[in-house]
């Protein structure tokens, strides 16, 4: 469904964050991107929904050229791609309800929504999304009153409002404890399995990778150094991706 060809991103400062990266994602995959901090995982995910403009290369989703899209067409593509963030990126002072409704903005009349008028059925949809994530009792709380795990669930509910074909998750559990990490990833897995939503997710922990990924891509300094099944990641591969120094810590974690 998604095809990335020769993707390169050079930041204005001259940092080459992605170098000639190509891969494909099939419908229904749970693709995990791994790599050291600074290897370009966030850059890659943000190029896919054009929060960052790639320097070179082409990304297509179901035949539509994402890299060439502009204006309304780009917004149309974006609303089909949900995004989940490490720091949740909720609007802290707004209510949970408003945050979830924000996920629907791409579908709504811009003028009415700007005035804060949302159709009743959208509110119902938001309520259902929250119910599905088990936090329907928090509808009226302010987003910053919630715990980290609850905030990330609001983030997922916001994404659900987009009825996405693809979900990009940038280290969705990196600021959560291990128990919560599983619970959040299980929601993503559920969306992936039951709703047939393709997921591209960056993760750091090997146990999580092997538990949830259907396929793994490894990045190192913006270059793809691994592509394969999670079970193929062994000591040697791990060393390649994470570098010699990281070997000890990571390798023990692997065993």
């Amino acid at each position, binding site marked *: 469904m998604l095809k990335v060809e020769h993707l390169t991103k050079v930041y204005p400062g001259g940092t080459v964050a992605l170098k000639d990266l190509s891969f494909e994602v099939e419908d229904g995959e749970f693709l995990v991107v791994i790599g050291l901090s600074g290897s370009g995982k966030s850059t890659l995910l*943000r190029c896919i*929904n054009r*929060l960052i403009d790639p320097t070179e290369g082409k990304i297509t989703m179901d035949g539509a050229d994402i890299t060439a899209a502009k204006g309304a067409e780009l*917004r*149309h*593509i*974006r*609303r*089909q*791609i*949900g*995004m989940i*963030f490490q*720091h*949740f*990126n*909720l*609007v*802290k*002072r*707004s209510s949970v309800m*408003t945050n979830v409704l*924000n*996920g*629907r*903005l*791409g*579908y709504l009349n*811009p003028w009415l*929504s*700007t005035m804060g008028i949302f159709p009743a059925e959208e509110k119902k949809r938001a309520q259902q999304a929250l119910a599905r994530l088990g936090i329907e009792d928090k509808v009226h709380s302010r987003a910053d009153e919630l715990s980290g795990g609850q905030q990330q669930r609001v*983030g997922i509910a*916001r994404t659900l*409002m*987009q009825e996405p074909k693809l979900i990009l998750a940038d280290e969705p559990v990196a600021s959560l404890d291990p128990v919560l990490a599983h619970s959040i990833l299980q929601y993503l897995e559920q969306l992936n399995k039951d709703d047939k939503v393709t997921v591209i997710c960056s993760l750091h922990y090997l146990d999580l990778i092997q538990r949830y990924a259907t396929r793994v891509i490894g990045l190192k300094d913006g270059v793809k150094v691994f592509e394969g099944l999670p079970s193929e990641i062994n000591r040697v591969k791990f060393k390649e991706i994470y570098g010699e120094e990281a070997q000890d810590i990571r390798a023990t974690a692997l065993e």
Partner: protein
Amino acid sequence: MAKKHKIFVQPLSNNHMTKTKTAPKWLAILLSAFLPGLGQAFQRRIRTGLYIFLAFATSLAVVFWDRGYTGAESSSWMIIPALIWLWNIFNVAFFPKASSALIPVFLWLILAYGVGAKVTEFNLPALFQNVGRSQTMIREILHPDFVQPLTEKRTGFSEIESPCSSALKAPNHSTGDVTVTILQPCANNGDIITIEGSGFWPNESVTVAWHIPIGPQAMSTTVMSDAQGNVKLDWQVLPIVYSNAPDPSIPQIHRVVLTQEHPSGGIELSSVGGYVLQGISETLGLAFLSTIVGALFAIPFGFLAARNLMTGSPIGTLFYFIIRTILNITRSIEALIMAIIFVIIVGLGPFPGMIALTIHTTAALGKLYSEVIEGIDAGPIEAIRATGANWLQVVRFAVIPQIVPSFTALTIYRWDINVRSSTIIGFVGGGGIGFFLWQWIILQDFRAVGSSFFAIAVVVIIMDFLSAQIRERLV
């Protein structure tokens, strides 16, 4: 100095100890005599040398400036640079290792105090000698004239001819609750007349006043009413009652007026109180309006002066610097100065004060708003862009919720400041309570001044409290 230091330090750096010993003391003394601090630098005490040099040079400069300022031929303060110079030689000769420059700094401070005191006409004793002068003033200020007891009045009069003429007419007197009669139909200079009145409130004082035909009242006295509300008194006619008459021998009709004021319970605003209220409401209105208008103008400036929004392109960066500079310059001009300028342009009253405050508010809030905008979290913005929202929706749902509480808090804080500023601005003719206060100070009506002080204090305390409360809830 730097050159000398270099020449000497370079060889020293290899073998510090031996060279220090051989460094000739007489050369250091000579160098310090020539230029204070140089000898110390030569002894590798660069910092001490620098301090001594600076203390010497600046104290010398101050003495010369003081001479120029006062026009005196010579200044006794010359002793300070001289002492620094002496100490400097002493220091080189006897303390080649000490690193303190405390004494020259201390000497320098004495000089600064002495010259400063002269220039500012500093006179500490005056603060204590003339305390007495302020006592009446302070007593009046502490007894503000804001309200007065509500009173009722009873008054009546009777006419009397003076001096007596050949053809006497029956004198008129007032009709009503109060009757006043004078037993004598006429009186000459020095005569004693007997005045009787009835219908007053019992056992309270009654003012008796002699009104001459033209001009002010000539004599007055007071008398107590008896238990029945009657009064009776004998009163001598004094020459002053003829003082305004062209010819004191021509008979004229005068009037004796009896007045009694009686507190009727309750209080009313005194006329000063009325002005204070008017001034305070003017000041509050002025502050409110200039805050609102200034805040509205400040919003676009805030966005244009936000680094994170503007510095993406060269044109944006240029705009950013221009707007920043304008805001900074405008902000640095006191609202008071602007008010003076606008009073000259548009005349006295609240309007020039309002313009000045509005401009100052715009600049100050523009800067603060831009800082809020610079501090917003980019996370929600990218999250909402990622949902396919358009620009307007991103602003509405990601930017505005982040900035509105801070904007509101800052605006309220500014209103609080503006209430104070508009009081001061009144002093230069910018309307409001300050304007009245200024006039009362000139008229030396210190009770009115006191009333204004108390009113201002109350308003400022209330504003402070309210704004703190609201801000606490917002942030």
